[in-house]
C-alpha cells in the first residue's frame, strides 16, 4: 500500500513538474537554415553541402552532401538540437501525407524525422531518398536470392 502511494505521488509530482517546465519555459524554439548550417558545419567541418532543405515548422533540416553516401541532419529536440551525419542507406522509407513527409531511419535513437514542405521539388528530393532506400533493399534481396 505504501509503495502504491509513493508511486501515485511520484506520478503526480512528475505531472506537476512537467506542467511547470512548460509554463515557465514555453517552447519558442525554431530552427533557422543559418543556425542549422552553423551547427552542422561546426561538427562536420569537412563536409561539402550541396543542398539544404528546412522543414516549414522549423523542426528539422536536411543537408545533401557532395559525398552522396551520407546525409546531414539537424533535428530540433525540444529546445536543443541533435546533429547527425548518417549513411544514406540508413533511410528505410517514407510516409507521405499531403505536405508532410516522415522519413523513417534504421536508427533506434532517431527512428523518424518529419518534414513539412510546401515546395514540390523539396518533397521529391526527400521522397527520392526513401525510394533509393527501397531500391537498396530490393537490390539486397536480389543479391541474396
Amino acid at each position: 500500500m505504501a509503495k502504491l502511494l509513493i508511486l501515485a505521488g511520484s506520478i503526480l509530482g512528475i505531472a506537476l513538474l512537467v506542467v511547470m517546465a512548460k509554463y515557465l519555459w514555453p517552447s519558442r524554439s525554431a530552427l533557422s537554415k543559418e543556425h542549422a548550417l552553423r551547427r552542422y558545419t561546426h561538427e562536420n567541418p569537412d563536409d561539402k553541402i550541396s543542398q539544404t532543405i528546412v522543414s516549414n515548422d522549423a523542426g528539422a533540416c536536411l543537408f545533401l552532401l557532395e559525398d552522396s553516401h551520407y546525409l546531414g541532419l539537424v533535428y530540433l529536440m525540444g529546445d536543443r538540437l541533435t546533429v547527425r551525419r548518417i549513411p544514406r542507406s540508413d533511410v528505410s522509407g517514407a510516409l507521405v501525407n499531403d505536405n508532410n513527409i516522415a522519413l523513417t531511419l534504421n536508427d533506434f535513437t532517431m527512428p523518424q524525422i518529419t518534414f513539412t514542405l510546401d515546395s514540390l521539388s523539396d518533397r521529391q528530393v526527400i521522397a527520392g531518398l526513401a525510394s533509393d532506400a527501397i531500391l537498396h533493399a530490393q537490390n539486397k534481396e536480389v543479391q541474396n536470392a
Partner: protein
Amino acid sequence: MPDLPQNILDFAAPFFIALIILEMFLGRRNGSVVYDAKDTATSLIMGLGSTIFPALFGVIVVGSSLYLYENFRLFDLGSGWLTLIVAFIMTDFFYYWIHRFGHRIRWFWASHVIHHSSQHYNLSTALRQTWTGPISMGFVVYMPLYLLGFHPFIVFFMHALNLIYQFWFHTEAIDKCPNWFEAIMNTPSHHRVHHSTNPEYLDANYAGVFIVWDKLFGTFVPEDKSNPCRYGLVSNLGTFNPIRVALHEWVAIFKDWRHAKNLKEVMLYALAPPGWTPDGSRMTSDMIKAEWREKQLAIANEKKEEA
C-alpha cells in the same frame, strides 16, 4: 543485521520535487536554469522507472552480496559509528570506480549512458537514471567490501546516501562553492564538467561525494569559464521515448555483435571503451581527445609561424 532503513530513496522523492521547484523559480529569475517540458518528462520517467525495474533483480543483487558476506568475509566489522563512517568513505571510493568503469567499458556504459542522455543540466537530469543497472552488474564492484566484513545492508544504505548527495549538484543555479569545499567535495562546478561533451572535459570527474578520488587517480579537470560546458552525448539522441532512451546502447551492442567476425570482436564490442570498432570507423573518447589535441597543436603552430 544493521538497523538501517533500506528505502531512503523513496522518502527522498518529495524533497527532490521540492528542490526542483525551488531551482525552477530561483534559476528562472536570474536566467541560469533552463528546463524543457519534454526533456523533463523523459528524465523524470527514467527516474521513476529506475526505482521499479532494477528492483526486479533485487533478489540476485541482495542474495549474491549476502552470500559473499555470510560465507567469505574476513572480519566482522559490525555496525558501530566508526564502521558506518568508514563504510561511507569506502562506498564512495568504490562508487568512483563503478562510475569510471561506467564510462570506459561499454557494457557498463550501456546502463550509465542514460544519465548523460539529456542535453540539459538541471536537477531533473539527476533523476535520469538507468533501468538496466543490474544487467551491467556494476554492483559486483562493491563485493570487496562484503569480503572485508561490511554488511551489504550498510553498503546499500551508503550507496543510497551517496546518490542522494549527488542530486543537489546537478544544477547551473550554483556557480562555485567556497574554495575549501570545492577542494574536497564534489560540487555543481565539478559535475558540470563530467556531463560535458567538450573534448577537454571528456572522461573527467567521476566522483560521487569526494572529488579527492579524481585528484588522486588523475581524472580531475576543473571547470574553465572560458570553455562553457556543452551537455549531453557526443552523438545526441533524436528521441524522447523513455524505452528507446533506456535501451539504445544495448540495441547498439546487439547490432554490432551481429556483424562481429570472431569472438575477440564480440568481447571488444562489449568490453572496450564506447565507440570502439575493429576498423576505427567510430570515435572513442580517446580518439576525440587526440584529434582535438592535434587541432590545438596545429593552431598553436600556425600562430607561431605568423608571429
